[in-house]
């Protein structure tokens, strides 16, 4: 028994149940949460570098599942986000008052579990083709959820996501032809800096940058994320973009670190810096709340890439690695909290503009608090997971004399403060705005729980750094490798 496969199998089993039952079966979530939580804890407790093959088939034929630090952290954050977003969605995607079900109410639940299982599958596998299938599971669910908000935006998202997947698949094809394996741990041992490898790495990276919405390939994200229903936006921004990011990590730092030119990493770092600046400026310019939060995602993804050049340089690279990974999960939790809180606030005022938020702090203080907690983490202010991440990155940058990255980190944080305190201060404005408060306890608690988690993880910095360091770069476990032709 191992959580590595159950973390995928359980959501898939639940998807089957949801296809059969639809929104009538949505309370299955209450069983899913403790089971997934248990599996997640189990995953976190596994000894470092735990890995096993699926079935009885050794590499290079089979598929290796592995619990490294990145997988552990991201799966754990995904479990937390998905569980809480699911609880929030219980009311959003429920049968109507007359008991009649809508297509959205039905379809959300299977797609939700498909996304959850797909994300876990992606985080836990070391096989590039397996990652392709996982990527498509997640993309499919994501586009369908985006379509619940805006069909147009979803269509654009769909085409872009398809192109991204295909670019990735093209690279997988070239790599397989070149190495007769698509397993990351095997590739790490045999990687050669030849033309096919370089082309493969380039097209895969391009595809994944699209999927992760990295500037300037981000265009699809803001409309899709902003228009979707709140729980869908939360899943999209928190989890979906991270799958592409993790594959980038696998490629650049696990499969091909030996042949990657520093200049290439610098290019990615530059893209990240541009994304931080561009996303922040756009976020500052937005007048509607959800568009602001969506552009913030573009900016926050930038930090992940900004860290790439810092990870390979020798001094402080472990800190940069930890900072980057922790930033990924901090953003997951905070952004999920923020989208859910935004959804509640906008529903309460029946509007979507920043100025509609007037006076909300007096009517729904807990929801505004959730937004504020998430904002603290996104701005990278203490005490929050976002701060830990930014602090580690800053330290790594300054240790390596990367003043440019350090400056971007700090300026990005300030810009985040500008765009996030804008809606927050609107909630303090005015005297007595008449609003209808959403009284649902569960929906109020959901963003608050995520926000508190994002902030309180700031006290667990040491533990997160320790987990993130668990990388088994030494290649696959000997037992998993069969005869290599």
């Amino acid at each position: 028994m191992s959580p590595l496969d159950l973390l995928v199998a359980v959501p898939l089993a639940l998807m089957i149940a949801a296809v059969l039952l639809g929104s009538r079966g949505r309370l299955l979530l209450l069983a899913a949460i403790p089971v997934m939580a248990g599996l997640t804890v189990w995953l976190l407790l596994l000894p470092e570098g735990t890995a096993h093959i699926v079935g009885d088939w050794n590499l290079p034929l089979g598929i290796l599942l592995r619990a490294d630090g990145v997988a552990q952290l991201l799966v754990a954050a995904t479990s937390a986000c998905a569980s809480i977003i699911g609880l929030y969605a219980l009311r959003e995607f429920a049968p109507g008052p007359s008991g009649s079900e809508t297509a959205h109410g039905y379809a959300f639940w299977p797609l939700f579990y498909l996304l959850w299982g797909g994300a876990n599958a992606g985080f836990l596998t070391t096989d590039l083709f397996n990652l392709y299938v996982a990527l498509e599971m997640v993309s499919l669910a994501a586009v369908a959820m985006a379509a619940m908000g805006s069909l147009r935006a979803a269509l654009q998202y769909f085409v872009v996501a398809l192109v991204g997947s295909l670019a990735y698949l093209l690279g997988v094809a070239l790599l397989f032809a070149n190495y007769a394996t698509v397993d990351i741990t095997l590739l790490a041992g045999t990687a050669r800096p030849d033309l096919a490898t370089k082309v493969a790495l380039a097209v895969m990276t391009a595809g994944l940058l699209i999927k992760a919405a990295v500037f300037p390939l981000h265009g699809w994200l803001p409309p899709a994320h902003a228009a979707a229903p709140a729980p869908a936006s939360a899943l999209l921004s928190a989890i979906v973009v991270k799958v592409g990011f993790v594959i980038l990590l696998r490629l650049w730092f696990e499969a091909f670190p030996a042949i990657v030119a520093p200049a290439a990493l610098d290019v990615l770092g530059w893209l990240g810096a541009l994304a931080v600046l561009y996303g922040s400026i756009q976020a500052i310019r937005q007048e509607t709340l959800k568009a602001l939060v969506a552009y913030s995602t573009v900016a926050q993804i930038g930090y992940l890439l900004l860290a790439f050049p810092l990870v390979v340089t020798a001094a402080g690279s472990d800190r940069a690695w930890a900072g980057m990974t922790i930033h990924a999960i901090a953003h997951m939790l905070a952004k999920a909290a923020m989208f859910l809180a935004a959804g509640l606030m906008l529903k309460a005022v029946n509007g979507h503009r920043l100025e509609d938020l007037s006076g909300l702090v007096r009517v729904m203080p807990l929801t505004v608090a959730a937004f504020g907690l998430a904002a603290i983490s996104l701005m990278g202010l203490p005490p929050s997971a976002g701060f830990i991440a930014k602090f580690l990155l800053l330290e790594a940058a300054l240790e390596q004399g990367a003043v440019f990255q350090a400056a971007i980190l700090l300026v990005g944080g300030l810009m985040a403060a500008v765009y996030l305190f804008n809606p927050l201060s609107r909630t303090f404005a005015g005297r007595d705005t008449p609003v209808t408060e959403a009284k649902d306890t569960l929906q109020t608690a959901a963003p608050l729980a995520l926000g508190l988690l994002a902030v309180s993880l700031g006290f667990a910095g040491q533990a997160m750094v320790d987990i993130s360091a668990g990388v088994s770069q030494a290649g696959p476990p000997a037992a998993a490798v069969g005869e290599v032709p």
Partner: protein
Amino acid sequence: MTLAFDLILCLMIVGTAAAALLTHNALAAIVFFIVFGNLLGLAWLAMNAVNVAMAEIAIGAGITGVLLILTRQRLMALGDDLVSAETPGWLRAGAVLACTGLTALVGSAVLSVAPADDLGGPIAALLPELGIENPVTGVLLAFRAYDTLLETFVLLGALVAVWSLAPGNAWPRPPASLNLAESGGGSVAQAFGRLLLPLALVMAAYLVWAGSDFPGGAFQAGTVLAGGLIIAAIGGAVAWPRADNSILRAVLVLGPGVFLIIGLAGIALGRFLFYPPGFAKAMIVAIEYSLALSIGATLALLLAGRSVAPDHRS
């Protein structure tokens, strides 16, 4: 096969693809695309990849082709004439440059790799353990069973995603009917459909059974089944069920469900998707039969589309 054959085939493949992409007429584009798919099937045959050839012709050309035709019809009914707006010249020029560059890059990468059958040997060596002879089936349902499992969920998810597009007042009514018989003059089609459906079932069953040892398998069989269902639906021999039909839902999840249960049962014996020695073939066949059924239903319903409101035109 001779060099000339390969060369002409490749030229035709590229030619039909170019025609499908460059023509202004959408219907022509779709027809070219279907021809393109069938030529690809031939190419796979030329490469001794019969399993892929079957999948390409059945799914890549067949199902996708029918899908494109149906979609075109639906769009025309909505007043969409499918004319692609002219793109500016600079964009096209840039695209030509970029795509030529990409082709050259990918082409030279392709040329830098020597084609080789690297894993055929190791796979053949392991097949006796499974008790089957078709190596592709072995890869799909044993060595890479995890990929295939996930993929069946993608297929199921696609159907759910299509269903999610139903407008508020339509759910959970059946999709729009394809029945030509309703509009009169379809009696031949009807009779044909009635005849074809059982035939498709038999053929699908055969394909699964043969798939363990000869080319074929669940996906090809599922496609045949889907084809039969579609033709039967056009003939009016079957009507689309409602989305909340519990038998339908059970059929849809049967394949993925059986696959997942067998996978989980493997945990009791060792690992996820572990087949106990001696039972591998039995399990693979069980998975394939249930998968074929589910895939057939899923593909057919993917073509049928989502629920439509009662007053829908088509």
